C-alpha cells in the first residue's frame, strides 16, 4: 500500500505493507534510529513519537496509522528552539544515564512543554507516566522538565 506522511518537516512517500509496525518503518526504512524499541508492547515509551500533535508509542501502531499524518521524532524536536532548551536542561541536570529511554522521555516532555508547560511536579509526573527509565533516574528527569518549563516562562 502506498502511504505518505510528513516526518520532521520532510514529506515522504512509501510503498509498504500497511500492517508493518510503524516503529519498524521509521527505523528500518527511514533510518530514524533515534526511535528506540524496548518492550514492543506500548508500555515503556522508548519508541514515543508525536503523531498529529499527540505523543504515542510507535511500536503498537501500524504503517497505515501514519498515512496522511504529521510525525515528529526526537531528531526533529532537537532542531526547534524549545527542543534545544529542553536538551540543555536534561544536560545540566545530568538526567541521562544509559540513555536508552531518553529519546522517548524527550519527546513526551517536549509535548508537555508545548501543550501545558506549567512547572508542576505532579502534572509532569503524570504526563511522563508512560515512559519508563530502568536506571530509575526519574527525579533528575522531572527536575530537568521543571527547569525547562521555568526557562520558557522566563522567556529565555
Amino acid at each position, binding site marked *: *500500500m502506498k502511504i505518505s506522511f510528513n516526518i520532521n518537516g520532510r514529506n515522504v512517500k512509501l510503498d509498504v505493507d500497511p500492517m508493518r509496525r510503524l516503529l519498524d518503518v521509521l527505523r528500518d526504512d527511514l533510518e530514524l534510529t533515534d526511535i528506540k524499541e524496548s518492550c514492543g508492547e506500548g508500555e515503556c515509551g522508548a519508541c514515543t513519537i508525536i503523531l498529529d500533535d499527540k505523543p*504515542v508509542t510507535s511500536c503498537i501502531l501500524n504503517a497505515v496509522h501514519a498515512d496522511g499524518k504529521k510525525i515528529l521524532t526526537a531528531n526533529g524536536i532537537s532542531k526547534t528552539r524549545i527542543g534545544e532548551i529542553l536538551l540543555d536542561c536534561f544536560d545540566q541536570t545530568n538526567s541521562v544515564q544509559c540513555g536508552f529511554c531518553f529519546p522517548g522521555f524527550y519527546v513526551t516532555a517536549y509535548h508537555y512543554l508545548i501543550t501545558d508547560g506549567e512547572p508542576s511536579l505532579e502534572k509532569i509526573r503524570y504526563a511522563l507516566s508512560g515512559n519508563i527509565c530502568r536506571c530509575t533516574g526519574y527525579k533528575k528527569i522531572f527536575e530537568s522538565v521543571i527547569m525547562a518549563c521555568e526557562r520558557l516562562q522566563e522567556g529565555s
Partner: protein
Amino acid sequence: MKFIKPSSLPDLFDRLQNYEGRKFFLAGGSDINIQIKNRMIRDEPIFYINHLDELRGIQVVDDTVIIGALTSYADIISSPILKEKLPFFRNSLKLFASPLLQSVATIGGNIANSSPTADILPLLLVLDAEVRLLTRSKLRFIPINEFYTGYKEYVMKTNEIIGSVHINIDAEKNWLAYYRKVGSRQSLTIAKLALAGIMKLKENSITAIKIAAGALNEYPRRLTTTENYLKSKRKEDIADKELKEVLTEDITPITDLRSDKNYRFDVCLNLIKEFINSY
C-alpha cells in the same frame, strides 16, 4: 493476514458480507498489535477502520451523551462536554494505561476486545451505558449489562460493529461515586481488579447503590446480590460476615499470573467497604 481498508462506512458493510468467519477490526491498535505479535491473530482478515471519522467524536443529543466508538480516551478526557456532564466518568479515565496509550486506545476497542480486565467496563456498567450496534441497514441498542455472555463472548453478530456508546446525561448526577483500580503500579498496569460504584445516601441509609467489578469474573459485571443486600441498609448495620456471603454469590475470582483468588476476593471486599465508608 489479509488487510482491508474500506473507503467509507457503507463500503465497510459491503465488504463485511464477504467475510462471515473470524475477523478483526483495527482502530487505535493498542491491543490488537500485541495479539498479532503473540501470534494470537495469524491469518484472519483485518479491517482497518481508524479513518472512518463518522465513528468518532462526542456529542449531546437530548438527554444522552453519545461517544463514537473510535473516540480515544485522550479525546474523552479533554472533552468539555464530559468534564461538565460526566466528571466522575471522565476523571476515572485518567487512571487508564498511560497518557501515551490514552491517545490511541478507543472506547469501542476496549469494549470489543472484551478483556475481563477492560478498564472502562465497570464504569459503563454502573452508569447504565448502552452500546449502539450497526449493520448495513439496521441499528440496535444493547445495555452494556447485557452485552457480554461469557469469556470474550458477546451478543454482537459477525456483521455488526460498535457504532457508539450512549450514557444518560444525568447518569452520575446526585450520586456519590467511587472508582478504584488495583494493580502492581499506578500507571501502565493491567488491573488485578477494579471496582466502580455509585450510591445515594439518606441519613446514613443507602437508598440506592450500583456496584460493578472488573477482573473478577469471565467478564466485568454488576454485583447484583451485593447491591440488593446493601440497598436500604443503614451503614452501621452492614455485617462483615453477611457482606462476604453475598459477595461470594457475585464474584468467582481466579488465580492467574497477576494475583490469586483469595487476594482478589479480600481486596474486592475491602474496596466495597472503602467505597461505602468514604461518604
